[in-house]
Structures are given as structure tokens and as C-alpha cells.
């Protein structure tokens, strides 16, 4: 999971929870372990965009999970309550995103508007922040939309304005939701893993392409044959042997195709 978080007080509980270690020599503060990465973006749209791009360059994999966590204002929810962004609006142009809600969680789902400046213009059923829209728009360039989510904890509302927020209360607010956030993280990570390319297949294909001189078309044919063979439960080692024994790429495809052919009928 990739976390994009604006401030240290919001990030620290997550860093502690996942035991993330600081990565030296990065343009923004980045913390990582084997499974998760967190970047502190700073305040506002531009910084959220930049931090999301930086973290993507470091992690470099399509369809990873992405979550923007932080505090936000809200017109209806109580202080300390958490919500997932179901509709994310940009106040500068009214562009909207709707992160698909396909995972199980018990957070409230609310609309949220990303503002250029802090706002005290609280509206019913609407959250306010300064990064969510820019984060979502950027992260969706790297991952399927379901895997990108925004979780906010209400820090201010009509009875408790944003200038009353005490920084030392923020880590406690975030920390109290981390178990449930982690349950969502696990679901997103599982979905992300299922969307990754089949490494075993790709590596075998690459290895076999080294045996003969494959054109681009034949390389695709080889990959398809291996994928089909695996899908119908054939042993890839048998195809490997056939390809090794072939005289050239054309013969390799012919032999592999001949081997797969009788098994193509659905069981």
C-alpha cells in the first residue's frame, strides 16, 4: 500500500503502526517497509500531485493500492469520526471523481471537496480538505480506480472550527481508526496482488524467447500459448522442452500450438 499523507502529525501513527523506516535521500520524507510506503506531501494540491508522482516513481508498479489519509473538516460528522471519500470534488473547477466502493468497511461514505484555502463554510454531508482531489486524479494514472481511496478523520466541524485544532490531538484521532484502516488496506492489497501480471509466465516466456530469434508477433503468440496452456492446466515444463528442441522460432510455435491444440475444449 502507498500512503500519501500531508503532515507529520497525521503520518506518525501510520509509521508506527506499520513500523515503517525512513528512506534517506528522497525529495519528500518517505517511510517504507517490505509491503507499505508512505510519503509526506505537505499542504495543498500541487504538493499532493508531486508526492504521489514521486512515490510512484520509487515503487514503480501498476495497480498498487493508494490511500490518502488525513484530517478534514466536515459539515455533519462528529469530531474524530472517519469517512471515506465517495465523491471527490475540486472547488476550482467542480471536477468530480467517484472512487468505486467495492471493499467492506464500516466508515461513513461522504462527499468531500478539495479547497484551495482552508474553509469554514461547512455544508451538510460535505467534507473539506486540500489534497484529496489532486491525489486521486494523480494516483488513478497508475492504478485502477477501485484501488485508490481517500480516508479522512474529522478534525473540525460547525461546532469546532479549524483554528481550534490542536496538533497533539491529531495522532490520537488517526490512531483510533488504524485497525479498521488496516482491514481496508489488506483488502485493497489483496485485490492489487490479484491484478499483477503472472511473473512465472512472463519469466518463462522471456527465457524461451532467448532460445530462438522470435519476431514481435511470434513472441506474442508464444506468450498466448503459454498462458492458454497454464489456464487449461497443462505442464509448462513440457512446452519448455518442446521449444528447446525446436529448430527455430517458427518451429517452436508450431510445436507448442500442436501440443496445446487437443486440450482447448472446455472441461
Amino acid at each position, binding site marked *: 500500500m502507498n500512503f500519501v499523507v500531508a503532515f507529520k502529525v497525521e503520518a506518525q501513527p501510520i509509521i508506527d503502526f506499520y513500523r515503517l523506516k525512513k528512506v534517506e535521500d528522497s525529495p519528500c520524507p518517505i517511510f517504507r517497509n517490505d509491503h507499505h510506503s508512505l510519503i509526506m506531501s505537505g499542504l495543498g494540491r500541487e504538493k499532493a500531485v508531486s508526492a504521489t508522482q514521486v512515490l510512484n516513481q520509487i515503487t514503480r508498479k501498476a495497480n498498487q493500492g493508494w490511500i490518502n489519509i488525513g484530517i478534514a473538516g466536515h459539515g455533519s460528522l462528529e469530531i474524530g469520526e472517519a469517512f471515506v471519500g*465517495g*465523491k471527490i470534488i475540486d472547488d476550482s473547477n467542480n471536477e*468530480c*471523481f*467517484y472512487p*468505486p*466502493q*467495492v*471493499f*467492506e468497511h464500516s466508515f*461513513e*461514505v461522504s*462527499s468531500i471537496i478539495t479547497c484551495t484555502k482552508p474553509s469554514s463554510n461547512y455544508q451538510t454531508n460535505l467534507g473539506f480538505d486540500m489534497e484529496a482531489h489532486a491525489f486521486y486524479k494523480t494516483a*488513478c494514472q497508475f*492504478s*485502477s*480506480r*477501485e*484501488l485508490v481511496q481517500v480516508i479522512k478523520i474529522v478534525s473540525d466541524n460547525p461546532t469546532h472550527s479549524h483554528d481550534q485544532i490542536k496538533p497533539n490531538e491529531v495522532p490520537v484521532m488517526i490512531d483510533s481508526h488504524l485497525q479498521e484502516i488496516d482491514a481496508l488496506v489488506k483488502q485493497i492489497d489483496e*485485490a492489487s496482488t490479484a*491484478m499483477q501480471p*503472472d511473473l512465472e509466465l512472463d519469466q518463462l516466456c522471456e527465457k524461451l524467447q532467448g532460445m530462438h530469434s522470435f519476431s514481435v508477433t511470434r513472441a506474442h503468440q508464444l506468450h498466448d500459448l503459454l*498462458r*492458454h*496452456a*497454464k*489456464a*487449461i*492446466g497443462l505442464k509448462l515444463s513440457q512446452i519448455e522442452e518442446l521449444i528447446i528442441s525446436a529448430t527455430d522460432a517458427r518451429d517452436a510455435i508450431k510445436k507448442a500450438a500442436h501440443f*496445446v*491444440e487437443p*486440450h*482447448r*475444449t*472446455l*472441461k
Partner: protein
Amino acid sequence: MIDTIYIESGAEEYPKCKEILARYSQAKVIPCNHYKEVFNPSAQSFRLQKKKPALILAKQTGKLVHPIPPSYGVGGKQNYYFSHLLNCLYDCRYCFLQGMFPSAHYLLFVNFEDFEHEILRISESSPESCWFFSGYDCDSLALESVTGFAQHFLPSFRKLPNAWIELRTKSVNTKILHDLEPLANAVVAFSFTPQEVSSQIEQGVPSVRSRISAIEKLADQGWKIGLRIDPLIDCKDFEQRYSNLLQGIFEVLPEGALHSVSLGGFRMPNSFYKRIERQYPEEPLFAGNFKSENGYIAYRQKIETELMEKCSKSLQQWVNPEKIFNCNI
């Protein structure tokens, strides 16, 4: 069943929308400006959304009723389809909807009255009987408990002697039909593959046995029944499996209750097929003996012809050939 409902601006005024919101009062409701903002964006995973589709309530402002391809009818000359609902409760791996739509959310157009007006207009202006197919982009009955589609539309068709409606389904959720007097101008058409195939590639679909039981009850009540053996799937023991399937059906279905049977091979536009295959690279069905021709993926001609011939031959033991229709590209 429905956790999240998106409501398009303006749709909330429709009675159908109000009725659904009242029924799913626990659902998370998210307003949207236009359904396309939710349904159409790229980079959505149909496969992931299929695990937990949301419901989008919107108004169809585009064309409401469309002509169907000439080879897809079941005897009528004027054939149309309409889609009050996009997407399906079931998860059939061969289904073209997975490749056609960017989202697996259920998109329900709540302006039922506009569909009715258009159907009325077309049927009144036609000198011949018109057929209206309702299960093209969805299953006609599977989401009846949510949409109330059949409950709303069947009484309207009862008043339209010049119009036929086909409800195409794999559902056994037929209570609404049992509660109504059968319509002379309606066909309840059940789609089938043999149980051995269905178990592999039709997730969530009721068993063949339970669908046959539903057919038996509907036929007893007087509903006209259609059978849609479509798509034919090239499978192990093809002849035996399809023969068993047909035997199981015709043991309980008197020919008098049978309106029509249609047969069709697996076929799909290349672009849809590629999109689906990318989402399900491990799917054995897609290792089948397919070829691409004229922009469509289908079984190789020799295989498709064989499947059609074997199934037709088996069918003719039970059915007058005049009731059998081949649906080809």
C-alpha cells in the same frame, strides 16, 4: 445486497427512484451530476466491481428503443430491444457486457414511463406485430426485487396486442410472473448451458435443475416459454451434455407451451473479447478454439458448424423445426 447507490441529479423525482431509496434506506447514497461520471470513466476494473456492484439510478435521455440485428429474432419481423438496466446480477465469463461496459455497477434508468411511451409509439405506428426484447443488456428478472421491472411493464404490454415482449433470464425469481395472469404476448425465455459448463463459467446462476423447475411451473400456469441455448460452448462430451440438458427440459415442458428455441455460437467483437481476456487471463474458456474474423471472435467455423448441427439434431427430437432459430453474426 445494494450497499451504495449513486443518484443522478434529477432522477430523484421519479417514483421508481423514491421507491428504491425507501427500500434501501441503509445504503450509502452518493449524488452525482450525470451517471456517466460514475459509469464511464476509464481505468475501472469490471472484475473488481463485480464483487460488489453499486446501483446507479439515472434517467435515460438518449435513444430508448433500438432495432436488433436481423438474425437475432424469434419469428417476428419488427424486432427491437430496450435497456432499462445495464449489467447483470450473474457473472458469466462469456458475457459481452464485461467487454462493452467500463463498469460493473447496475445502471437502472428510472424513467420507465418514457420507455413505455416509446414502445407504445413504435407498436402503434407499425403495421405488423413488434417484438421488444428486454434482456439484451441485463437479465430481465434477476434484479426484479430491486427494479420492479416486470411488475411495471407487463401490465402495459397486456394492453398492447400489437406488441410482444421477451423476458430473457437465467433467474428463478419468477414470483412476479406467478402473481400475474399469463400474457398472450409475452415469452419468458430461459438461457441454458449444461450444468457441467454452467458450474465452470456462470457464477451465481441458479442450477439447471432449479431453472427447469421454474419453467415447469410457469408453463403449467400458462406462460409461453422460450429456450435460449446461446452461447453454445465447445466442451468435453458436448453431445451427451447438451442432449441431457434438452432431455431434462423437455421431460417437463410440453411442446404446446414452447414458443421458440434459439441457438447461437459464442461470438463477440474483438475489442470486447480482448478487454475481457485481459481481466481474466487465467480463464480456461479463453483458451478455446477461437478465431477472429470480420472484427468478431468466434469458434473456428468447422467447430461452430459442428456444435450447431449436433445441438439442432438433438433438439429436433423434441421440437418442431419451425420453432428453432439460429442466431448468427
